[in-house]
């Protein structure tokens, strides 16, 4: 890696004692010797293992649950169903007033995705818990399922989640988040060319090497210590407190080094049920996802569909950009309404466009709920925006890099969401990329600055 210190040197103090120096990481000696403590590097006498009996159907009503055979299975200590969970209906972002509560810890009346948790089985070994879970009998009435976002938004589509009529998240702005800036239709009217394209993505797994999990021990004083690999200690504590109707001071979360997160450990899924199990059995409880659960049960990055309609002039100016984005939340909200909103704030990308129209929808379908992953709300948007930029450049016969220089935002430019641009450095990144990649552009682009516009 090379630091190009000549850019913006007048904005920095490079003469500091500790900042700007590549000090050796103090944690790495622990990593290489295997001494770093991850949550699962602990053993407790009498530890119980929790395994989940999960829905085999994409969408079904639950008619009955029979746990009698599971309870009799050798090694099984306790079986938990929805009625054991004090506040079974929850949503994680309720902490920052983003509701409604729309997901059950354990399904009671209905399952809305294949893999949804129905019954938790606690046993003295993983194997006994797994075998016990296989003996849970659930009678289902299978319902029609919907997987495609546009199908889900049709009026006669199966209702994925009773808390979200119409299968969309209801923002205060309606069925989608809006950004309106300038007059997009006037922009299209003046444009030399209009290009409308659709981009799609599929769900993506965070795939940390360490799977999601926790170990809970009853402290003996009505408090519970939860060793967890969550990315957010208090998010977990506060949500567990709500779900378990247990005051926060009864809960003690201990993290450490997490074996990779990438957004996959921001949901609060394993901890509340494991704490409940420890409380009801009085024994330490371990609930750790298998690799298969990590791959298909834990929330992935949402699939998205993004339609971009642009108006561009022959001289390279982007004069109108209209974006319609759809985020596939799967069956429950988790962080997806937030992600769709983040997309609305991100468009039209790092470019100054005078006429912008943005609609982003968060849509419910019968699949694994999606949630946070490295860059969500923006990653797929950038794929769509930057492929679109390439197409536009080629449409008007312009070099793709020069086309970006022409439209790049600068300090002081008003963004579509009505914040002035500050601290921009896109132009300098492009100048440096041009040099390092030997991708020449016209001289005037090397003279540009993010700090001001040329006269």
């Amino acid at each position: 890696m090379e630091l190009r210190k000549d850019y913006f040197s007048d904005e920095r103090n490079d003469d500091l004692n500790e900042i700007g120096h590549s000090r050796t990481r103090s944690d790495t000696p622990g990593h290489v010797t295997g001494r770093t403590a991850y949550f699962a590097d602990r053993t407790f006498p009498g530890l119980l293992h929790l395994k989940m009996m999960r829905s085999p159907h994409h969408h079904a009503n639950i008619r009955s649950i029979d746990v009698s055979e599971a309870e009799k299975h050798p090694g099984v200590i306790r079986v938990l169903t929805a009625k054991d969970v004090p506040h079974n209906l929850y949503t994680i972002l309720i902490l920052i007033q983003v509701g409604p509560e729309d997901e059950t810890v354990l399904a009671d009346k209905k399952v809305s995705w294949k893999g949804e948790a129905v019954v938790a089985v606690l046993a003295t070994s993983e194997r006994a818990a797994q075998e016990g879970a296989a003996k849970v009998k659930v009678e289902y009435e299978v319902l029609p399922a919907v997987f495609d976002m546009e199908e889900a938004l049709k009026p006669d589509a199966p209702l994925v989640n009773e808390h979200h009529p119409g299968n969309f998240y209801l923002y205060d702005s309606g069925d989608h988040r809006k950004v309106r800036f300038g007059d997009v239709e006037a922009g299209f009217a003046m444009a030399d060319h209009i290009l409308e394209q659709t981009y799609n993505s599929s769900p993506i797994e965070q795939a940390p090497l360490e799977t999601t999990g926790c170990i809970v021990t009853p402290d003996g004083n009505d408090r519970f210590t939860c060793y967890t690999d969550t990315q957010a200690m208090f998010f977990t504590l506060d949500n567990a407190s709500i779900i378990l109707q247990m005051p926060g001071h009864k809960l003690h979360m201990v993290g450490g080094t997490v074996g990779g997160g990438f957004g996959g450990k921001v949901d609060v899924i394993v901890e509340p049920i494991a704490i409940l199990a420890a409380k009801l059995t009085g024994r330490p409880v371990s609930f750790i996802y298998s690799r298969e659960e990590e791959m298909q049960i834990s929330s992935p990055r949402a699939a998205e569909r993004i339609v971009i309609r642009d108006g561009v002039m022959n001289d390279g100016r982007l004069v109108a950009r209209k974006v319609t984005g759809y985020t596939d939340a799967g069956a429950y909200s988790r962080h997806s309404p937030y992600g769709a909103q983040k997309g609305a704030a991100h468009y039209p990308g790092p470019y100054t466009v005078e006429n912008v129209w943005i609609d982003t929808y968060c849509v419910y379908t019968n699949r694994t709920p999606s949630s946070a992953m490295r860059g969500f709300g923006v990653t797929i948007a950038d794929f769509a925006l930057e492929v679109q930029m390439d197409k536009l450049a080629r449409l008007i016969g312009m070099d793709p890099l020069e086309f970006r220089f022409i439209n790049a935002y600068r300090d002081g430019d008003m963004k579509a969401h009505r914040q002035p641009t500050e601290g921009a450095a896109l132009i300098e990144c492009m100048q440096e990329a041009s040099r390092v990649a030997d991708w020449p552009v016209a001289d005037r682009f090397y003279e540009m600055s993010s700090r001001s516009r040329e006269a």
Partner: protein
Amino acid sequence: MALKRGRGVAAINYPTGMNLGGDPSQALVHSTPTGSFMVTLSSVDLGQGLRQVMSQICAETIGVPTEAVTIDTADTDTGPHCMGTFASRGTHRIGNAIVQAAREARDVMLEVAAEELEVDAGDLETDGTGNIHVKGAPQKSISVFDTALAAHFKHGRSISGRGMFLVPRSFPETETGAMKPATCYAHACVVADVEVDDETGEVSVLSVKNVYDVGRALNPKMVEQQLVGGSWMGISHALFETTEPYYPDRDNGGTDFNQYLMPGPGNLADTETIVIERPAADGPYGAKGVGEMCANPQIPAVANAIFDAVGVRVDTMPITPERVLRALKAQSREAPAG
């Protein structure tokens, strides 16, 4: 049938911290009797090296060596609230909280040192190696060690500080979308070179030239770790990764690392990393969040390079050999080779 080469570019920006703000983090700093400093947090280290960076931020602010700072974190019984480690917020949000806490602790430390030296606290400075001295008169000095001892056992002063950082929550206007989603943005521009096998549809990313604006590289080698690993993940996203290969069809999802594909050590692109530092006005020592943005620009750069190589657009991620091949077949149906 041939291997065809192409080149593509992409440029991006990325917001630091939770969208629309409202995501606080706190830090507490105190000294031990012998002048070591403890930072208590509840933030989580995901492996990106949060502890190391936070100790450097604290050390710089107090004016002691990094080794003198210990980070005690991820325990809700001892650490004050942190929203969490996500949204490229750790360095920026928690770093700012530590700067505030460390400044307060430094002020107390200098007050105690001033009493010991019988000078004005405003005339003191730290040398960064464990000593405090009068500006312009380095011989009139006291060690941080002796200062902390005096604070504890003579003056009854707690060398400590509290820090809290919160970007106030913004609420979008319903009809216009006017809002303040973030306070600072990182930037990047990437040029990717690919080779596409037009017989199999396979894409090899030969090289990526990644230029990133990170605000400030607080620990350059650790920034490099993020940027290089992120670039790999971006390429992986572009070409390989999904849990539902035939989305929206729910079938054929991978359940293990044999089915869920990512580039291995034998499939690496030659990766060149260039860093520009335009400090963020509100970042700790100018730092912006880079954990997420570093993995984004490779995806469109690779997609654009594929078009440059073989003239087909695959507008659905991931750009698998099957999708490339189908696009090539559709292309040859439309315009048979003459």
